[in-house]
């Protein structure tokens, strides 16, 4: 079957090319047909979106925008709505993830964009959300207003479903026009969201576009970026570097690179009852999207000295992953992914010869792998797709010295620890580059208003416009009512 992807504002009766992306699921293929604009058409879209951003979007109050997004999210949360049904049907085929994982993932993700969460989002970054609507008095005198750019360009990446929503919603909240380039690994969700928004508020029809082009198209990218106020880019450092080289100095670039996250289990979490719960939650973080997210754990450091040993934790983890495999099987892997996974696992197995204390646990189909290692604890990424390492540690300093050299790559820690440890360790982990600490089981569901890679969602998008108190005082002299 063929499904239209993307979204275009009204640019008249233009004939445009489309690109067909094919996804092979186990019960048939889906073709995504997505607009592929030429340069002239792209310029028309840019002009249209900018105009609508200035004339329409900026005339809405932020409370109104929140209301519209809330309604859209409500429809996407409603399992009876056609868009939700389409998402539940198509996304598992497109991304390969298990249907239940997609369904549960969508719900837990979407609910972070409900009205109250969006308000939190606004307060978190701006303090006073009215800053987006009007000049607000400042404590130190004068007034300020937060003004979103005319146009934000988003370069989305990856196959984690619905990921584009973070930056698109942020863009809308600051009343910017938005043009998003979808990833060929998941080209649908952003376009559906745009359509739902327009169904709810037709006046938004020209405020955004969702398109695709082949990455690396230098001329097209340069032209678009030079007309954008902000470019938000997702991807590996290499592709971000390429993007950056095409962005003029006058355009703000917000790059979100690939990251590595991990778990830490303190001995205080390791009595026989609690350990089981912690490991159960940790395994959940592993199976959600098969570790493809930047917040997904690659490895777990387990403190020695608890009632349950690190080695036992590894075995419990193996057990949990096997159980999850039955309920939520891993997505089918490509031959390349399969080969690199099995080569990774075999290399680990060969290491047992030199380190008899090491254990490599897995089933015969290689659905998951847990490696336990204690001789030489280290910090390297997993090959993903339900492969984790468990390693013991004595004190937090050991972990800090391992991860510190990789500060630019660190993101989330899933932690099972007592309150004192939580704050003490957070303090030192923050110093070496970690930007998010959460509970095990929550690693893949960041809370509303989180600071993605330590940054602000909205503040980084806007410019503050100040009216200094001198200007206000001086204006009084020219008032018609002046005596």
């Amino acid at each position, binding site marked *: 079957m063929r499904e239209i992807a993307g979204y275009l504002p009204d640019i008249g009766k233009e004939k445009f090319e489309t690109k067909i992306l094919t996804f092979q699921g186990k019960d048939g293929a889906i073709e995504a047909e997505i607009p592929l604009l030429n340069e002239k058409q792209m310029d028309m879209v840019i002009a249209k979106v900018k105009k609508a951003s200035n004339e329409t979007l900026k005339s809405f109050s932020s409370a109104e925008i929140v209301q519209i997004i809330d309604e859209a999210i409500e429809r996407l949360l409603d399992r009876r709505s056609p868009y939700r049904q389409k998402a539940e049907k198509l996304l598992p085929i497109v991304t390969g993830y298990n249907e239940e994982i997609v369904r549960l993932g969508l719900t837990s993700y979407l609910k972070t964009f409900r009205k109250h969460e969006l308000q939190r989002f606004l307060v978190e970054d701006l303090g006073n959300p009215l800053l987006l609507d009007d000049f607000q008095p400042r404590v130190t005198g004068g007034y300020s207003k937060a003004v979103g750019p005319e146009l934000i360009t988003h370069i989305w990446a*990856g196959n984690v479903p619905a990921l584009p929503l973070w930056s698109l919603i942020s863009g809308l909240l600051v009343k910017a026009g938005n043009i998003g380039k979808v990833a060929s690994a998941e080209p649908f969700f952003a376009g559906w969201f745009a359509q739902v928004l327009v169904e709810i508020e037709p006046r938004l029809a020209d405020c955004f576009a969702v398109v695709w082009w082949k990455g690396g198209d230098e001329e097209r990218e340069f032209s678009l970026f030079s007309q954008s106020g902000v470019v938000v880019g*997702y991807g590996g450092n290499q592709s971000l570097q390429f993007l950056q080289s095409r962005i003029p100095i006058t355009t703000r670039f917000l790059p979100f690179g690939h990251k590595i996250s991990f778990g830490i289990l303190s001995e205080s979490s390791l009595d026989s009852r609690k350990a089981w719960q912690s490991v159960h939650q940790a395994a959940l973080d592993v199976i959600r999207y098969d570790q*493809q997210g930047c917040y997904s754990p690659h490895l777990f450091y387990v403190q020695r000295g608890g009632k349950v040993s690190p080695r036992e934790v590894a075995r419990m983890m193996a057990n949990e992953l096997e159980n999850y495999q039955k309920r939520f099987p891993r997505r089918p*892997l490509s031959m*390349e992914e399969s*080969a690199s996974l099995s080569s990774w696992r075999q*290399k680990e197995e060969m290491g047992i010869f030199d380190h008899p204390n090491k254990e490599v646990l897995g089933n015969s189909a290689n659905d998951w792998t847990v490696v336990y290692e204690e001789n030489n604890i280290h910090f390297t990424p997993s090959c993903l797709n339900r492969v984790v390492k468990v390693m013991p540690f004595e004190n937090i300093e050991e972990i800090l010295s391992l991860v510190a050299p990789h500060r630019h*790559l660190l993101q989330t820690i899933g932690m099972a620890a007592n309150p004192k440890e939580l704050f003490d360790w957070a303090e030192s982990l923050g110093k070496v580059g970690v930007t998010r600490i959460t509970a095990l089981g929550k690693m893949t569901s960041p809370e509303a208003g989180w600071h993605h890679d330590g940054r602000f969602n909205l503040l980084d998008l806007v410019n503050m416009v100040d009216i200094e108190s001198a200007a206000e005082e001086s204006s009084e002299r020219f008032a018609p009512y002046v005596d």
Partner: protein
Amino acid sequence: MDQQQVIMENVLQFMQKDHLEEEDFNEQALRLYSYQYQFNLPYQAFCRQRGKTPRMVKAWRDIPAVPVNAFKEVALSCTDPEKAEAVFMTSGTTKGIRGKHYHPNLHIYDRSMILNFKQRFMGNIEKVRMGVLFPTEKEMPNSSLAHYLALAVKEFGKEGSGYLMNESGVDMDRLLDELNRAEETGEPYALIGASYSFVHVLEELERRGKTFSLPKGSRILDTGGFKNQSKELELNDFYDLLSSSLGVSRTECINMYGMTELSTQFYDDGNESIPAVKSGPHWIRTRVIHPLTGEEMPKGERGVLVHCDLGNFNSVTTILTEDIGIELESGFLLLGRVQGAEAKGCSITLAEFLKAAKEPLK
């Protein structure tokens, strides 16, 4: 005779056979397997972990395949690795750790190469004047390819054959002399060497605006792919260029596929169409498996190549590669090497991490 000599004698006899029953290969493979299980201790541990002891292994297809990566981790040898006559090493990229293949002596390696090269590259000529586009054995004592090429010159090279290299790479002046000479004398000429050296040659010929038309019977052997050492070329363009710049038809351009971890090479019968079917002599067999389950893929479907090389008498016969291919009636298609899968999501991949660790962000 000690056990190693007996085993080597067996293998040599096997390689000389011109008639082969299915059972013969099996028998020889299983004999090597129990020898290696007994004397190659890391391999024994590896087999035990898989529950594949000689009692359980009934056919060559059951012999546990050792991943190529293992050659980086442990010394896979039935004899003291310290006493090996030759140690061939992989070029090794990540972390600079190189896989090592120990050869207590090179009798079998050399015999395997000679018999096979004669049949697959030399065709019906005894000797040919050769030019080598690769460093010498002396310069690269741990390179199996350097040894292979040296052997080719020694066994099959006419007088005047030699290396066309200098400190900075291909010695273009000498190469041009040789090519001119061949054109003038009408004597067939063979250029053999690394694929990336040929790319440099092609670029240089283009820059100088030179083309040649080598005499009939001339041939080319390239091997190893481009390995980031030169501009990556599409295979089709590569053979087109080779053919048009040197006047050797694509059917006379043979690609050799070899691995440091093996003692036997595969060849195609020219590269008229891409990818060309590769095959080896009767003492090596290839299976195509699914990397996760280890099960054989149906003929015609993509999988990972496993080679069982009876020439590997001292290390392990059966190697699990990281090469993707398809099994056909007449051999297999090599579709390329797994370079570490690309990132699907926004989590970092191993390859990217290693790259970042090597070149810290400025």
